[in-house]
């Protein structure tokens, strides 16, 4: 069974870390990630850029509404996500609009990815 581990933390606090503190946390995490990779258990992991870089597509209306900032409602729950390789924000929004047409209601938050570690399970098995 594949599991997603969703990371929540206070952004104010994380953004107040010094570079040294940030690097120390990342180094501790890297040790665990490396072990999981060797065990063939490490799927994709990524670190998102701050919510200030987010844009939200509200798709409960037609046409969907583009809003600056992260998804902030509490009525809806996180049900899944996509990783897409888009040229820029407009391109990413177009992809999200196409998905929205197929699945209206709720919202998509479009957040740039800061750090991307691809899935290496297959490489380890071979």
């Amino acid at each position: 069974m594949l599991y997603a581990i969703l990371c929540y933390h206070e952004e104010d606090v994380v953004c107040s870390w010094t570079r040294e503190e940030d690097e120390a946390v990342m180094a501790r995490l890297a040790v665990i990630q490396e072990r999981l990779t060797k065990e063939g258990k490490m799927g994709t992991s990524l670190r998102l850029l701050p919510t200030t870089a987010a844009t939200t597509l509200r798709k409960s209306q037609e046409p969907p509404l583009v809003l600056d900032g992260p998804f902030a409602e509490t009525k809806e729950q996180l049900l899944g996500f996509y990783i897409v390789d888009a040229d820029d924000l407009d391109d990413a929004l177009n992809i999200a609009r196409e998905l929205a047409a197929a699945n209206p209601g709720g919202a998509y938050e479009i957040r740039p990815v800061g750090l991307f570690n691809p899935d290496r399970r297959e490489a380890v098995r071979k």
Partner: protein
Amino acid sequence: MTDAAWIGAALTAARPQAMGALLRYFRDLDTAEEAFQEACLRALKNWPKNGPPRDPAAWLILVGRNAALDGVRKTSRQTPLPDEEHLSDLDDVEAPLAERLDGSHYRDDVLRLLFVCCHPELAATQQIALALRVVSGLSVRQIARAFLASEAAIEQRITRAKARIASADVPFEAPGPVERAERLGAVAAMIYLVFNDGYSAGAVPDRAALCEEAIRLARILLRLFPAEPEIMGLTALMLLQHARATARFDANGEAILLDEQDRGLWDAKLINEGLALIDKAMRHRAPGAYQVQAAIAALHARAARPEDTDWAQIDALYASLEAMQPSPVVTLNRAVAVGKVAGPAAALALIEPLEGSLSGYFHYFGAKGAFLLQLGRSAEARTAFDRAIALAGTPAEAAHIRRHLDRALRESGEAAEK
């Protein structure tokens, strides 16, 4: 993370919001600061024992308010507030309580707190020192180290700034849309001052911290005002400039020109965030000076090698910046792009009319010398570089020009030998 480190980070993060609310409540900077200090002391005692509250800012506001009111005699109209010993367990009570106290005021509180620091009667250096003390919570010692000044001098600068503000009218009512936009503009300029103070200082570690603090403040502002393209532009501009921090100076602290920097040292994470923010800002089709400057910085950031730089686009962006914010310094910057696109003669022709207004400006003579050197006019280049050295503000600036001057001397020497 240890308790102390976690609490320290939480207090730093909560400070602007808590200080902003306390300032609105007490309408006096010193009282608000004392109340916040007291709340922090109680947090250090209370949080390790009772666990961290769900909303540290709300906790600090309530406790700070209580503590300050204990000092003053309570009037009968004030409702007693719960003791802080009981606050951290009352997660369910805490949020609505904070909501009732401050609710949607948070946004304007933080803006007001920042705005107070950029009062037009305060000199730029006072604004920066006050913001770092009051909003960021840096100690007088930290600020003194960043400014390379004595603690007594900084203490006096802050005290005078506070006195100025106390005698001026600080607007405590909630701002209307026009006032809010004006305050945002003033606050953005002040944050950029803090940044530039760190950025222009050279390889001084304590000053680089000013750049990081300015970025942190801009992110806070952006979270409060998520749809303001100029705030996105300002944040992007600072991220893109700061991304080059480790590549800008050599081991001796001498400046390294953009073209000669090791681009592998540029911070890809900060660049990505800056680029993402510009992308967001552009969608608003409401260009402004910060966005244009960020777009210029982005073109540099996107070029993997110096020769990949899109100088024609940079020239066009500087032209639009000139139209928005006419200034000889902007034209001087544009001349560098013109020099790359159309050659040094065109660049020189663009800047020569500026000599009158920039006669005391280090960078003008540095650029003029460089263009003259490219044109093979070494003797004139030498005169320009001499002027630049005389005007240099830091040893790093002077050393940088001396390198150019050495080259000019070498080349004129070679020319004489031929």
